[in-house]
């Protein structure tokens, strides 16, 4: 219990100090806000083009697709807030040797590396994403108005969203941890970011081959489509359970990989 309090207190300190540092650059706030709004506007524009002749996108209605887009925006905001600032630093630590200092602290090194900094500039994305989701759920549309989802659907969707966050974190962390072996692939997280853009659209909008890839190779489907289905009450329980299992496996995998990476680092470094 005392340990948990110590970790919580450390987390609060981590985040208050990094927010204080970021707030020294107020220009960033405007740039991020404009960037999020611009990206959102552009994505909605493209979505409108795709719905041009009225045919649904892979069986998804306009409102449904907006929900998927909203979820993607939330995940992107989370990436900017937590994943990007922390995990891109891991390579820095390895290259400059300051990873030693992290390993010497009496606190779990994966915890430190994953949560040490936070960027408040991801918040506009998260907020905008949630606003879009609410608007899509409540807005009366020509075909169906979904209205508020049932509390069961909301809970399931929330759980699946958390599962998505965990999967996303694990993907990022695994790639960043690989830089202990392959320093040269430090920008692999950028590739991840650019390929996850596929999550903007429901997975059934893609041709079957890509659908397979986005479900089993790069679990984009689990990130946005499945939580969206849950919100719309269309979720089949199999996929929901699968998503939660995948999240658990990814998190465990990232932990195992990190332990192995640490053992490698301390046996072979000088």
């Amino acid at each position, binding site marked *: 219990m005392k340990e948990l309090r110590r970790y919580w207190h450390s987390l609060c300190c981590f985040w208050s100090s990094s927010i204080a540092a970021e707030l020294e650059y107020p220009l960033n706030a405007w740039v991020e806000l404009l960037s999020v709004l611009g990206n959102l506007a552009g994505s909605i524009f493209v979505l409108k083009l795709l719905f041009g002749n009225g045919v649904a996108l892979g069986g998804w209605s306009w409102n449904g697709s907006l929900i998927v887009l909203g979820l993607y925006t939330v995940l992107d905001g989370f990436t900017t807030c937590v994943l990007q600032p922390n995990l891109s630093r891991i390579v820095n630590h390895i290259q400059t040797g300051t990873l030693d200092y992290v390993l010497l602290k009496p606190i779990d090194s994966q915890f430190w590396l994953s949560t040490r900094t936070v960027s408040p500039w991801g918040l506009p994305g998260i907020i905008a994403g949630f606003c879009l989701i609410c608007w899509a759920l409540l807005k009366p549309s020509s075909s169906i108005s979904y209205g508020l989802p049932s509390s069961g659907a909301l809970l399931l969707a929330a759980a699946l969203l958390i599962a998505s966050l965990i999967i996303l974190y694990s993907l990022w962390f695994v790639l960043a941890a690989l830089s202990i072996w392959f320093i*040269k692939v430090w920008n692999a997280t950028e590739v991840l970011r650019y390929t996850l853009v596929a999550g903007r659209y429901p997975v059934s909008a893609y041709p079957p081959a890509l659908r397979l890839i986005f479900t089993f190779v790069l679990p984009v489907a689990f990130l946005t489509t499945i939580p969206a289905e849950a919100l719309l009450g269309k979720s089949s329980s199999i996929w929901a359970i699968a998503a939660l299992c995948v999240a658990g496996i990814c998190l465990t995998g990232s932990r195992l990989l990190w332990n192995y990476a640490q053992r490698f680092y301390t046996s072979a470094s000088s």
Partner: protein
Amino acid sequence: MKWAWRVARALITSQYALMLEYRAEIILWALSGVLPLIMLGVWSGSGAAAAAGISAQQLSRYFLAAFVVRQFTVVWLINVFEEDALQGRLSPFLLQPISPLWRYLTAHISEQASRVPIVAVLLALLGIAAPGLIWLPSAGALFFGVIAIMAAFLLRFLLQLVLTTFCFWSEKAAAIDRLLMIPYMFLSGIVAPIDTFPPAVKRLAMATPFPWMIDFPARLIAGEPVNIALGFTAIIAWCLLLLPICHLLWRAGLRRYSAMGA
């Protein structure tokens, strides 16, 4: 003239050797350019392209061409420049008799040269995965397409150069470039063929330099009917507009840099 040729050769060979060291990173950067292929997946699933009069084959050729065009028109000037300026590496460059911009330009050209085999391998893999996707463009299309790619690269370089000069005044100029990426993404034809735009938006897009960076070269290579003269004229016009702006801003920026005693 002979001196200029010698300097150019030295710069290109040294930058190429440097790029070879960054092979692994460049492969990853090439992979991160898959957006047009993802968009191809989405567009072929929807019926909107057919409604705009684009056949499935035209669609796939366009996006594949856009993928290749994007690989060879990538500009990363502002990131390295900002880093160099912050770390103080700029000062030794400025002491040399040639402008540091030539160094950055040759770095870009060398990086593109080192990408050629990587893109070739990626295209080969795509061809194996989906045999109908790959085709050989006609000689004319290829010829004009390559020139269009080079022209588009130059245009993008100049556009980013304008923003890069702001690094002399602000530490966060690279963030502003990210804002410029948004119209680039949505108006240049990477995520949607421009023909699918509503007429008003299409007219707006054509007034910006962005369609000429991706849409124009991609359609040339894909073999679609396109007004070649108009395209090249537009690119040249934009370049001529940006060149004096770059020159003035660069000079002003250098004055400020030396005044700050960096």
